[in-house]
């Protein structure tokens, strides 16, 4: 056995130990999801919204595809200017929801959530003050961002495992010179 193969074997062993060590703080149960910008509650609402924009079926929905992660990541960077809007509007969306339906958005039935969002989109709640923002225009931006997260490149934090590409029957990941039929 030469030095190379020994070191490879040892390397794998050591990597496993290393990974175990790193895991210690979060080992018990599911690791918590951390966000750069969003609070746990905001992320929860956004997860529900993402599943409304792209509902799960035989393929992942927005939540499972990492749309919230995408938005959070962009809010900490390129979409930084949208942070106040998200902060204000996610809470306002929940407040209006309690007003109308007597419950928080995230506990509404899926179909009730849908009709509530349809009302928001059509401008039904635009006369309410969403902390200085307009309900329907926030929804328009949110919709765009969700679609970007679901259909854009996974490098930005969404479209987990290229789920949208798989759904659209597009080869993934893209290998230059290999995907030609």
């Amino acid at each position: 056995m030469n030095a190379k193969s020994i070191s490879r074997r040892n390397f794998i062993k050591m990597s496993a130990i290393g990974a175990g060590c790193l895991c210690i703080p979060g080992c018990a149960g599911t690791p918590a999801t951390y966000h750069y910008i969003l609070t746990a509650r905001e992320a929860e609402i956004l997860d529900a919204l993402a599943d409304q924009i792209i509902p799960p079926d035989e393929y992942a929905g927005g939540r499972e595809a990492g749309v919230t992660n995408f938005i959070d990541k962009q809010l900490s960077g390129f979409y930084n200017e949208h942070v106040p809007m998200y902060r204000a509007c996610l809470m306002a969306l929940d407040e209006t929801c309690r007003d109308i339906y007597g419950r928080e958005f995230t506990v509404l039935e899926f179909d009730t959530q849908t009709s509530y969002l349809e009302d928001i989109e059509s401008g039904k709640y635009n006369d309410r003050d969403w902390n200085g923002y307009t309900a329907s225009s926030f929804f328009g931006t949110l919709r765009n961002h969700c679609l970007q997260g679901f259909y854009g490149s996974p490098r930005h934090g969404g479209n987990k495992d290229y789920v949208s590409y798989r759904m659209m029957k597009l080869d993934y990941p893209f290998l230059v010179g290999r995907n030609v039929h």
Partner: protein
Amino acid sequence: MTNKHVNAVVVGSGAGGGVVAKELAVGGLSVVLFERGKWARYDDHNNDELTSQRTFPLGAYFGPDNERYRRVAVDQHGNERIVYPNDWAYHNNAACVGSGTVSYGAMAWRFMEECFKFKSTYGHIEGSSTADWPITYDDLEPYYEKAEWDIGVAGDDYRNPFAPWRRRAHPMPPFKHNREARMLEGAAIKAGFHPFPIPMLRNSIPYGGRPPCIRMRNCVGFACPVNAKCGTQNTVIPVAIDTGNCELRTECQVYEVMTNGNGRVTGVAYFDERDRRQVQTADIVILSASATETARLLLNSKSPLFPDGIGNSYDQVGRNLQGHAYCGADGLVEEEVYDDVGPGASIAICDFAHNNPGITGGAMLANEFIRMPYLFTGVRPPGSARWGKAHKDFQKNFFKRHVSIRGPVQEVPNPESRVQVSQEVKDHWGIPVARISGFKLDEDIRTARFIAGKAEEWLRAAGAAQIWLSVPGTGVSGSQHQSGTCRMGDDPQSSVTNRYGQVHGVDNLFVADGSLHVTNGAFNPVLTIMALGYWVSDYVVKEWNHGNRF
């Protein structure tokens, strides 16, 4: 540190400037080629749709950036707002070595003979500043040929009965059609049209020391990973640098064309890559910074002799801004026609580019480039769901059964569509930014409606079940096909340069980009911009070698 004096400064390394730099350097002039961007690399963005030059919600990778650049957009009601490069109202093209030619779709059209004689073909249109070019197709023909052979075009014009005459065939054979185009070919013939493969600035065979195209899905809006797409950055610019006569200076923002007391241009002032003010003196200056930025640069170059900007004695600089009134039709078909063979655009017809009875102008029609997944989220028949289950199902079920035909309708130029400089808004360097305002004429929309109807006919012949038309609004166009802001002409009162791109009244200042276009053709304009690059350079080099120092 003082920069060494050179014979020529070229501002902008895109389709026009790249060609000019090469021709001048080969002709023996010492050249500094300025580019505000950097070298773009495929590996830095690879197949990332969200930063492509086609859809750029997360910023346009090929530049410019949102941090340092902005413009003022004025809508038709006169409302102004500040816009950034990843907003459509910015009318962005690109900012990198090669500019738009790195990420373009690379259609390589020659304008038709009528495109150069718009006014005499269609007469005067109310509210327009329509005019004929001071040069004809015959003048430019040898320069089209030069562009095709120097940079590389794959095509076969002999299958297009409406093609203008040519001396020499394309240097490379045309591309084979993808499945969608094969389907559309039969349909076009059935409809009585004359289909043929789109000429492309893309290698169909090894050419210029670069390999053939691998038919990727991510072509338009992206750089090519194997360098099969022919831009100025991988053809003429390397040749220019190899002569030893040309220095490419990247990340330099030119902000003023400098003049002396006699009204002669002495060089340019710019900010270098570390934002230091610098001066580069030259015997002649050639502006190839795009229709928006060339106009802005002229307007920002004020002096006692040119209080309103150089070349602007008759208030012509920045006027007649045009793009194309893009229109077309989309349809859904029974069979899957998507076979993942890029770039998607493959087949065209020129039946309606000109000579449409009762219609002003027209457009070439071609099948559309591949719609990437995020772009496709916006492709829906009117009244469709914009989110939710139905939206997702459409994405799933129709991506491979969607066909789109598009045509760039030649606009009638109007003087109120224009680039000015803002009085209040400045960029990162403190330079007044471009202010874009204007509209399309009703005549443009009427032609677009006609052309969209022809696209519909084509899709109907293809058996599309559901068809919907797309006709543009009346907002000002520009964007990647921006042109017309420093148009050429014989009369200084209605144009900015003479027929050689030489600015009226300033003999050692030239323009060589889309700004020169009097009208923008019924086609994608890049090959014409390249041809004009050769045309202007040919004049400059010949005169220079005869001892003319302008």
